Structure formats: structure tokens, C-alpha cells
């Protein structure tokens, strides 16, 4: 008789219920309860958005540029993006039909995956990687296939490992170099190997190049610019990291027109368009932001030099990152696993780093330290880490 005896209906779809919570979120809850924490756990620039960019956004508001834009994005912004891509990445795209403005790279990744994947398709990607990759693939009912990368290769994806993972269902190869969380970067030769592999197995390459402008090795052309790659590559990029514009939420994707058209269909029904005032800020960033962008890059590069030196002196070895603003030191010599190391470091020394396992199981034995924080704080954090590590041995 009584309904209360029946178990309540499970409304959440099984494939969503099965998604693990981000390992970072648990950690975040713990950090929230403490003060005077020095955080090396922040994956966003510590610089405020350059003033001229903020001012352009204020100007847009003042002048009532507050309505919808075209679904693909403000045509002036698309034009600026295509010009910028040609000049900076060696990529030639048509603003009319080969470029779409999205709400951050996160949305760009989501809609391109939804546009190309059917249930059961497989996506090859490297681990450690950004936390959203596997969940985003799962949300399309496709299958994420992680390929492990290793410290001895400076976390660059190896073709031999890809060859072992590829199957007839493989459809997409997802790359993120310069890499979050390891700071790994690809040389032109590395990119050529990936391109050859993708062509050999007829794969679509999704290249997440959000950290491309934060490169500390001589810049090489994007993978999409290599012979035979433009028609099988979607390049994803955005304004968050290079121009310190995380809160503006503007990203973009460039690729073959049929793919951009398919992505646009999803975007128009789910998002309609990206924020008009944020797009106005993005135009300003591309047109006049090169100076501040380079200043920030140089500051990151110098902090990288300092933090890598200190960590190696402490006995937590790490290679010199080629890009982004992360170092990924090995902490296994302390005898602790990544989660315990990070938790105890936080509790005992009030320094937050992110356990490597948040970025894939092969991140065990490593932690991610972000140097998107002032050098002063980095120095204090390094002193505390040194004390923590010495007390362990």
C-alpha cells in the first residue's frame, strides 16, 4: 500500500551517475576550511586582465553592445581570430565558415565531441590530462581510451603507445600540448609523428592549444598546418590563459567548414552565442594585447626557472616544462602517494598542490604545482615544501 516502501526513483542517468567527481573538488573542499594557505593549485593566471581589455568591455556596455551576436560569434572577432591564427600559428581559416566562438575551450571541446561521436566510438587521449577529457567523452556515450605518458619522455605522447591502443572504433585523437598538468610540449617532430599516426589510422585530431601562447621553446606551427592535417583537425583555443581572461569565458574552434557547421547547430540550441561584451573584450585582446601577453609569458618563464630549480634541489625531480604554467614533480621518493602527500602538505604546512592522480591514474607519484602565483609566494611555498620533505626522511 505505502509508496514509501519503494525505493525512490533514480532520476540521474546512469552514465552521468557513473562519472567520478573531479579529484580536485574534494581537495578544494578541504582547502576552503583553512586560511593562510599558499596555493600552487590554481590553474588560472594570477594577473588581472590587462586594463585595455577590461576597458573595451566597459566601453561595449556603455554603448549598449549587449544583445545576441551571430551564433558563430561576432564577425569582427572571427575575422580577428583567423588573422591571429594565421600570424601566430601558421593556420589559414575563413572567418565566415571555419571558425566558431564558444564559451571557453570547455564548450568548444564539448560541442566538437558531440558533433563527431556516436555511442561506442573511441577517443584516444593522453594521461595525465585536463580533468574534463574523459567525462566529456563519456557524456556523448563514446568511450575514452587513455594512453599513458611517462616522465622519461617528458610526458610527450609516444606513437608506440598509441599503436597499442588504436582499434577500428577509434575515431578521434585528442591532444593538449603545451600540457596541463605536466607542462609538456611538442616539438615539430613530435607533431609530425602524431600527424602521421592520425593519417595512417584515419583519425580526427582535436588539438587543445589553450596554452600555446605560453610556450618557452621556440614556437612551431600548429599540427593542423602540417600536410594533410587541415581537413582532419579541429584546433581549440581561447583567451583565458594567454590574455588572463578566464572569467570572460571566451574560446574558439577552427576547422573544416562541415565540422564547424555541425558544432554550430549544437551551440545555437544550447548556448545561442557567447557573451557579446566578453567578445568585445576578446577583439581588443587580439588587436592590441600582444605587449601585455608577452610580458606575462616572460614572467611565467622566469618563475618556471625558479620553481624547477628549487624543486630539484629539494629532491622532487621535475623536467623543465616547455609551456603552460605547471610543473609536475615526482614525489614518490618521499614514500607517500600523491593524495597523501598533497593532503599532509596542506594540513601540516598549509601549501596546496594538486595530487597527480586528479589528472589520471598514471599521475600517481606526482603532484601538480602551478606557478601562476607571485614569485614571493612560490619562494615561501618552496621553503615550506622543503621543511615538509626533510621531516619525512
Amino acid at each position, binding site marked *: 500500500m505505502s509508496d514509501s516502501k519503494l525505493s525512490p526513483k533514480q532520476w540521474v542517468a546512469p552514465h552521468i551517475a557513473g562519472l567520478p567527481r573531479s579529484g580536485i573538488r574534494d581537495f578544494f573542499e578541504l*582547502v576552503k576550511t583553512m586560511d593562510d594557505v599558499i596555493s600552487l593549485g590554481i590553474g588560472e593566471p594570477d594577473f588581472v586582465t590587462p586594463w585595455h581589455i577590461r576597458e573595451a568591455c566597459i566601453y561595449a556596455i556603455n554603448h549598449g553592445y549587449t544583445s545576441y551576436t551571430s551564433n558563430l560569434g561576432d564577425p569582427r572577432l572571427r575575422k580577428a581570430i583567423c588573422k591571429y591564427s594565421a600570424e601566430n600559428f601558421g593556420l589559414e581559416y575563413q572567418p565566415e565558415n571555419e571558425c566558431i566562438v564558444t564559451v571557453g575551450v570547455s564548450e568548444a571541446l564539448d560541442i566538437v565531441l558531440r558533433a563527431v561521436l556516436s555511442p561506442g566510438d573511441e577517443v584516444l587521449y593522453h594521461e595525465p590530462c585536463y580533468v574534463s577529457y574523459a567525462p566529456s567523452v563519456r557524456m556523448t556515450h563514446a568511450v575514452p581510451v587513455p594512453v599513458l605518458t611517462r616522465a622519461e619522455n617528458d610526458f610527450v605522447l609516444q606513437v608506440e603507445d598509441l599503436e597499442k591502443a588504436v582499434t577500428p572504433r577509434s575515431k578521434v585523437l585528442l591532444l593538449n600540448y603545451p600540457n596541463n598538468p605536466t607542462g609538456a610540449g611538442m616539438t615539430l617532430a613530435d607533431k609530425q609523428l602524431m600527424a602521421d599516426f592520425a593519417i595512417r589510422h584515419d583519425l580526427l585530431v582535436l588539438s587543445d592549444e589553450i596554452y600555446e601562447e605560453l610556450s618557452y621553446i621556440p614556437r612551431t606551427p600548429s599540427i593542423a598546418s602540417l600536410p594533410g592535417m587541415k581537413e582532419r583537425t579541429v584546433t581549440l583555443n581561447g583567451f583565458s590563459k594567454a590574455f588572463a581572461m578566464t572569467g570572460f569565458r571566451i574560446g574558439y574552434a577552427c576547422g573544416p567548414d562541415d565540422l564547424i557547421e555541425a558544432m554550430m547547430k549544437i551551440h545555437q540550441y544550447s548556448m545561442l552565442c557567447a557573451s557579446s561584451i566578453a567578445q568585445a573584450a576578446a577583439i581588443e585582446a587580439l588587436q592590441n594585447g600582444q605587449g601585455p601577453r608577452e610580458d606575462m609569458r616572460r614572467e611565467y618563464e622566469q618563475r618556471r626557472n625558479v620553481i624547477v630549480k628549487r624543486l630539484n634541489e629539494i629532491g622532487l625531480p621535475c623536467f623543465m616544462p616547455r609551456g603552460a604554467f605547471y610543473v609536475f614533480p615526482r614525489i614518490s621518493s618521499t614514500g607517500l602517494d600523491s593524495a597523501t602527500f598533497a593532503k599532509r602538505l596542506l594540513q601540516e604546512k598549509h601549501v596546496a598542490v594538486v595530487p597527480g592522480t586528479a589528472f589520471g591514474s598514471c599521475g600517481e607519484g606526482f603532484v601538480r604545482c602551478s606557478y601562476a602565483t607571485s614569485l614571493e609566494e612560490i619562494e615561501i611555498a618552496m621553503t615550506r615544501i622543503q621543511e615538509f620533505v626533510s621531516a619525512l626522511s
Partner: protein
Amino acid sequence: MNDATLKKEIVALLRRNARMPEKELADRLNSTVDKIAALIRELEKDRVIMGYAAIINQEAENGEVRAIIEVGVQPERDTGFDTIAERLGKFPEVHSVYLVSGHYDLRLEVVGQSMQDVASFVSSKLASQPGVKSTATYFLLKKYKEAGVQISKDEHYERLKIVP
């Protein structure tokens, strides 16, 4: 990094913080303390670096008065503006001297203990200099930015402590 590039980077960093320790400079630039110290000595010897000064908030400078003075001068036959500019620069009251384009010739920044102090410098010393044709004095009322540093601190927005 070659020496010329290193020197450029050192100058850029010292401009931002003249007290930056040599150790930090070395670490930031992937160099050694000895190398950095040697290059700084060279920069000093070549008068690329001429001194190290603090950037002071005017409100903390008790009773000090500053003025910008526009000076119209008669240039000299062989040396143009240089002789008179250098002569005016010898007065300790004169903080800086620039030759500028526009309606007048030299732009001086003058420091004194009071407005009276500055006024008497202008009338009794500056205006009477041979070659000085005209002066216009502007007392500085409030400083908003100096040497690239905003006087009022920007509001600081606290980022989330952990972000993927």
C-alpha cells in the same frame, strides 16, 4: 641567453624592483649569481644603470612641494640646448630636466620645502639665468601614478584556491 639579452632582462627586472637580490635575478634568468653581479657592474660602469631610487608615495613625503616648470630658452650657437640644460640641471632643487617638443623648450621638475621655496628659486635663480626667456610654473597637487606604479592600490579579487 647571451650577455646582451641578459643585460636587457636585468634592466627590465631592476626597473620593476631595484632591490631584487642577485640570487633572484640569477634564478629567474637561469644564470649564476657571479655572472649577474659581473653584468650589473658593467651596466653601472657604462652608466646604463645610474642609480637606484625608491618609488615614494607623496603623502609620505612630509611637506615636500614639487612643481613642473616650462622654460623657454634661447639656444646657443654651437651647443643648442645642451649647455643651458646642463647648467640648469646643476641646481640641487632641479629633480629632472627634459628637452621637449611643443610650445616651450625645457621641462623641469623642481623640489622644494614649500611653495615659497620653489617660487623664490624660480624668480631669483631660474628666470635670471642668461638664455632663459620665459617660465611657467605648475605646482603638483596630487600624485596618482609614479614610475609605473599606481598610488592607490587596486582592489584585490581573491581567486579560488584550487582550479583545474
